[in-house]
């Protein structure tokens, strides 16, 4: 039983030549709108209890419109939204706060605006006050608050009752670090109790760390609904997409998705990771010196060519990445037909686990100006702890531990 089902949802804005025609249309007279502008088309997805879903997309892709329709402030033009439970949105914290009233009065008013009764509100008020941790200020006018204090009360109000679906905008990253952690704890706690999360963010690491799934919106369509890493790789390729650039995703043997994109003016012919015995390797020992060899073929004359690479952990977070722009080894004026071999040697100082390598062929230090080719999961390898003592984490760091007895 899903907690939120969105089916064939569409939204259009109608404009009329004259507003009088709009008024006439309410009374059932047949007046055609001058223009119908569709901003969302045929959106369908569902969210299960406890699932957390990331919503990504470029500005203007339709994320806010979709969220407004899910929260119920905007009516859909077609399609349906079925919600089984209560939705709370942390979008605009502190909406409708009156600066002249105290935190308590505003909290009370804010909760009543969400449709709760006096009795329900009285029950959660002590907990809300404790959560906000602003002491005596809770009974002072809000105009005397710092913005951080206002945030605390507002967040407390938004999350005073556990909703079935919590919508969190990236604007959440406000307030001091301590309170950020506290808010995140509360969100996680809700999640454990079965709340589904809908997180809107451009932040790759936040989406990949928190979400089980991600939905990518582009020009009002859902173009990707998959596990976060695959979607974020696709999104990354998309924001660099220019004319005559293509994005392709293929399933690899391990069931993961390999994403490649770019204009194709230069391409990687071969990418391989070699171990210390000069063999193509899939399993690497912790600390072993390895070589990443990338064979690049150039198809068009290029002003500059930069190779970038990044090593990603199991969750798809880049743990190390650099490029030949930063190492000042930019190739200038490369001609069509040239083939270059890049050999990158480094010690595999990683913790045991699965890793992947992404490669990028670009013109400068980012892939946003020209993206010749970008490949995610070009190489997948495993690191095994063969000869080191047991350790935890992603990083291998040879320790030297000295113990001195300082008293009898």
């Amino acid at each position, binding site marked *: 039983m899903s907690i939120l089902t969105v089916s064939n949802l569409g939204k259009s804005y109608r404009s009329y030549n004259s507003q009088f025609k709009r*008024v006439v249309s309410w009374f059932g007279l047949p007046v055609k709108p001058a223009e119908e502008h569709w901003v969302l088309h045929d959106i369908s997805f569902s969210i299960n209890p406890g699932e957390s879903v990331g919503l990504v997309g470029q500005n203007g892709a339709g994320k806010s419109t979709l969220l407004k329709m899910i929260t119920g*402030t905007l*009516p859909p033009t077609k399609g349906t939204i079925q919600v089984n439970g209560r939705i709370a949105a942390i979008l*605009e914290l502190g909406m*409708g706060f009156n600066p002249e009233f105290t935190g308590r009065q505003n909290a009370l008013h804010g909760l009543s*605006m969400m*449709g709760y009764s006096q009795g329900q509100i009285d029950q959660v008020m002590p907990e809300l006050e404790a959560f906000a941790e602003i002491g005596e200020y809770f009974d002072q006018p809000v105009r005397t608050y710092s913005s951080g204090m206002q945030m605390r009360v507002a967040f407390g109000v938004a999350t005073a009752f556990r909703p079935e679906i919590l919508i969190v905008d990236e604007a959440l990253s406000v307030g001091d670090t301590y309170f950020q952690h506290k808010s995140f704890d509360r969100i996680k706690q809700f999640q454990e109790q079965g709340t589904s999360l809908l997180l809107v963010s451009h932040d790759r690491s936040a989406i990949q760390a928190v979400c089980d799934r991600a939905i990518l919106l582009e020009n009002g369509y859902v173009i990707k609904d998959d596990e976060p890493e695959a979607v974020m790789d696709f999104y990354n390729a998309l924001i660099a997409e220019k004319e005559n650039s293509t994005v392709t995703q293929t399933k690899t043997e391990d069931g993961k998705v390999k994403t490649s994109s770019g204009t194709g003016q230069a391409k990687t012919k071969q990418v391989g990771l070699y171990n210390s015995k000069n063999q193509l390797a899939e399993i690497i020992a912790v600390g072993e010196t390895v070589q990443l060899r990338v064979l690049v073929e150039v198809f068009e004359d290029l002003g500059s060519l930069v190779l970038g690479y990044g090593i990603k952990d199991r969750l798809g977070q880049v743990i190390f990445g650099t490029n030949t722009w930063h190492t000042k080894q930019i190739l200038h004026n490369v001609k069509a037909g040239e083939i270059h071999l890049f050999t990158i040697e480094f010690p595999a100082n990683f913790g045991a686990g699965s890793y992947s390598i992404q490669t990028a062929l670009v013109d400068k230090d980012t892939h946003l100006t020209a993206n010749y080719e970008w490949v995610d999961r070009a190489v997948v390898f495993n690191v095994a702890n063969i000869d080191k003592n047991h350790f935890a984490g992603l990083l291998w760091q040879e320790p030297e531990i000295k113990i001195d007895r300082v008293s009898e």
Partner: protein
Amino acid sequence: MFKAVWQYRYFILSSIKNDFKARFVRSKIGGLWLILHPLAMVLIYALILSALLKAKLPDVDTIYAYPIYLTAGILAWTIFSESVSRSLTIFVDNGNLIKKVAFPKLVLPIITFGTVALNSLVLLVAIFIVFAFLGHFPGVQALWLPVLFGVTLVFGMSIGLILGVLNVFIRDIGQIVPVILQFGFWLTPIVYTITIIPEAHQHWFDYNPMTHIAGWFQDVLLYNRTIDVFALLKFIGASMLLLVLGLFMFKKAAPEMVDQL
């Protein structure tokens, strides 16, 4: 529609309370301002016009007849114009709230209704206190006041709701209506009596609904006259029709409203 509103009854109460409190949360004499504004208005007109109009007020023996007449009319007008002008901008003023928070929009006119009703009651109490100082105690006809209050409120709110809905789409309405209200005030026998108008033209005033309402307020507060119940019933019927029209337009416009705010 109405069931959803019932769930938000605490929000409605809280909003009315807050609106009332916000008016004097930082002023020294607080609620007195609610009374001082209309009283100042009465005082000004009374000082300027009373000598002029004294002779024209028939069958009233108190020397304060004119100020009382004036106060009755201004009370009626204040209830009406406040209902209209507040409803006129409810959707536009609360645009941000409507766009960001999901709640039944019908709650907003209900809050306005409550706020205006509360303010008018406070004003009425103040007026009775002033009347007592002047040695004037309205007679038994004053029992009509609750009905008159209700009619004026519903009439004003219905017009306000219709205009408020239209104002979302045609913002000029928000500019025109206050001007029309200004004219309306002077086209209603409030500071003057209908008797100063040449008899041949008096019938034109019948087309102004506020002439009737102001007249009833003056009847019960000053003259202690019975009011024309049949006319009142007709008026109630018309107000109800307007209210239904307003609610109908609101229901039709609601889905498109958010797009325009």
